[in-house]
C-alpha cells in the first residue's frame, strides 16, 4: 500500500510556506529604515521608502497610474477582440482549430524585448513611440493570446443552446448577453480579464523598448533593487497587489466548483 505519512504533510506545508512567506515579508522590508550588517533584525522601521514612492514628482506615482491604465485598456480591448474568436473555438465551429491556436499563441513564446524592438521601428515612423497607445499595442501581442484561450474555455455548445432557448422565449440580443451569456461564462470571463491585466502589468521588455520615455512600474522598479532595496520592496509590494488579488479570486472560484 502507498501510505501518506505525517512527515510528508508537514513537508508539504513547509515547502508551501517557504514559497509564499518571502512575498509576505516583502511588505515588511519596505518599512526598514536602518539595517546595518550583521544585525539579524533591522535597527529601525519607518516610512522613508513609502514617502519616496508616494512623493509628488518622483517617477513612482505616474508609473503606477500608467501601468494600471495600460493594463486596463489592453485587457478591455483584448476582451472585445477575442470574444468572437473565443466563441468560435469554444463552440468547436472552427475547421482548423489547431492552426488558429498556434497562430494566436506563438507570439507569447517569443521574447518580449525582441517583439518590442521590432515594433519600435514602426512606432518611430508612425510617431507613436513613447505613447500609451504604443504600449497598449505592444502589450496586446502578449495579452490577447491569454485572453483568447481563457475566454474560449467558457464558451461551449451548452452555452449556445441556453442562448437559443432564451431567444426562443423572446429575449433580445442585449437581454441574452446580460442574463444568459455573461452569467454562463462568468468564471472564464473573470479569469481572462485577470490574466490579461496581470500579463500587461508585468511586461518589462516591451515597455522598455516602445515606451522608453514613459514611466511604467516594472521599468521604474529595476534600478532601485541595487540602489535602494527598501524602495524596491515598497514598489514590489505595489507590484504584487494584482497577483494576490488574482490568487484570491482563483481560489474562491475553485472552492465554488
Amino acid at each position, binding site marked *: 500500500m502507498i501510505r501518506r505519512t505525517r512527515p510528508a504533510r508537514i513537508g508539504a*506545508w513547509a515547502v508551501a510556506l517557504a514559497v509564499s512567506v518571502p*512575498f509576505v515579508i516583502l511588505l515588511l522590508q519596505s518599512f526598514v529604515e536602518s539595517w546595518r550588517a550583521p544585525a*539579524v533584525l533591522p535597527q529601525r522601521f519607518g516610512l522613508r521608502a513609502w514617502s519616496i514612492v508616494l512623493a509628488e514628482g518622483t517617477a513612482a506615482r505616474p508609473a503606477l497610474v500608467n501601468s494600471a491604465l495600460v493594463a486596463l485598456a489592453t485587457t478591455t480591448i483584448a476582451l472585445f477582440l477575442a470574444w468572437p*474568436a473565443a466563441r*468560435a473555438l469554444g463552440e468547436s465551429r472552427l475547421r482548423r482549430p489547431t492552426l488558429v491556436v498556434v497562430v494566436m499563441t506563438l507570439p507569447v513564446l517569443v521574447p518580449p524585448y525582441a517583439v518590442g524592438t*521590432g515594433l519600435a521601428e514602426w512606432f518611430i515612423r508612425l510617431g507613436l513611440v513613447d505613447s500609451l497607445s504604443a504600449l497598449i499595442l505592444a502589450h496586446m*501581442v502578449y495579452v490577447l493570446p491569454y485572453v483568447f484561450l481563457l475566454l474560449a474555455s467558457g464558451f461551449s455548445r451548452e452555452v449556445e443552446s441556453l442562448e437559443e432557448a432564451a431567444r426562443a422565449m423572446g429575449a433580445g440580443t442585449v437581454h441574452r448577453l446580460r442574463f444568459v451569456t455573461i452569467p454562463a461564462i462568468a468564471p472564464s470571463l473573470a479569469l481572462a480579464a485577470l490574466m490579461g491585466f496581470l500579463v500587461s502589468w508585468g511586461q518589462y521588455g516591451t515597455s522598455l523598448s516602445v515606451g522608453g520615455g514613459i514611466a511604467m512600474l516594472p521599468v521604474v522598479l529595476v534600478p532601485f533593487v541595487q540602489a535602494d532595496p527598501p524602495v524596491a520592496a515598497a514598489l514590489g509590494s505595489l507590484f504584487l497587489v494584482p497577483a494576490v488579488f488574482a490568487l484570491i479570486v482563483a481560489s474562491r472560484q*475553485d472552492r465554488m466548483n
Partner: protein
Amino acid sequence: MRRVPAAVAVLPACMIIVALFGGALVGAVRTSLEPGPAGLAGEVSLDAWRAILTDPAFLDSLLFTSWITLASTAISMIVAVGLAHLIRGRRRALWALFGLPVPVPHLLVAVVVVLWIGPAGVVDRLAGALPFELIRDRAGLGIMLVYVLKEAPFLTLLIVAVWGPEVRAREEAAATMGAGPLQRLRWVVWPRIAAPLSFGSLIVAAFVFGSFEVPLVVGPTYPKTLAVLALDAARTSELDGQARSASILLVTAAVTIVCALLLVRRARADE
C-alpha cells in the same frame, strides 16, 4: 440564430496578432539590415549579422543562455514532479500558497530573491555570509533560482490537474502487485503527466531563453543573456548598435519559434 461564420469570427483577433507580431519581425529584420558606419543610408547590409556572428561575446552569450534555459527547465520539471507528489490530494489552501509565484511577475520574484540571498540579504544575516555566490554569479545560479521558484509551482499545478484519484487507484493497484515507487512513476504516472509537463516545459524554456529583466537584476555582468546583450548593443554609441541589437533579438526569436513549431508537429504526429 444567425451566426457569423467561424472563419470570419476569428479574423479580428488573428489579424491583430498577425499584424503586430509579423510587423515586429519585419521591423526587426529591417533594423538588422541597416548599414553600419561605413555604409550609406538606404543601403542594405549584412554587416551587423557578420559582426555578431564573429563576436566571441555573442557566442558566449548564446551558450550561457542555452545553459540556463536547459538547466532551469530540467530542474523545474524534476522539482515539479516531486512537489506534485507532495501536494496532490491535499487541501486547497495549500495549493493556493504553492500557487502564489504563478501570477507574480518574474521581475518581482527576482527582487525577492535579491532581498533574501543577495549581499546583506535576510539569509546573509541569519546564516552569516554564504560560502558561495548566488547573485550575479558567472554560472547564472541566481537566474536559475528565480526561474525554478517561479516555474516549478506552475508546472506542479499542471501536473496535479491530471494526477487525480483515478491515477492514484492505478498506482495502488500497481503497488499491490509489487511495483516500487520508481516503477510506478515510470509506468503509471508518467504516461499521464508527460503531455502537460512537456507542453508546460516548452513555455518555461521559451521564457528563460528570452529572459531579460531577471538577468538584469540577478545575472552576472559576463556572460550576459542574449536579450541583455541586445540591450547593451542598442545602448552603445556605436552606429551599428541598433542593427546588432536587432540581429541578436532575431536569433532569440528564431530559436523559440523553431522549437515551438517542432513541438507542435510532434504533438500532432502523436495524435
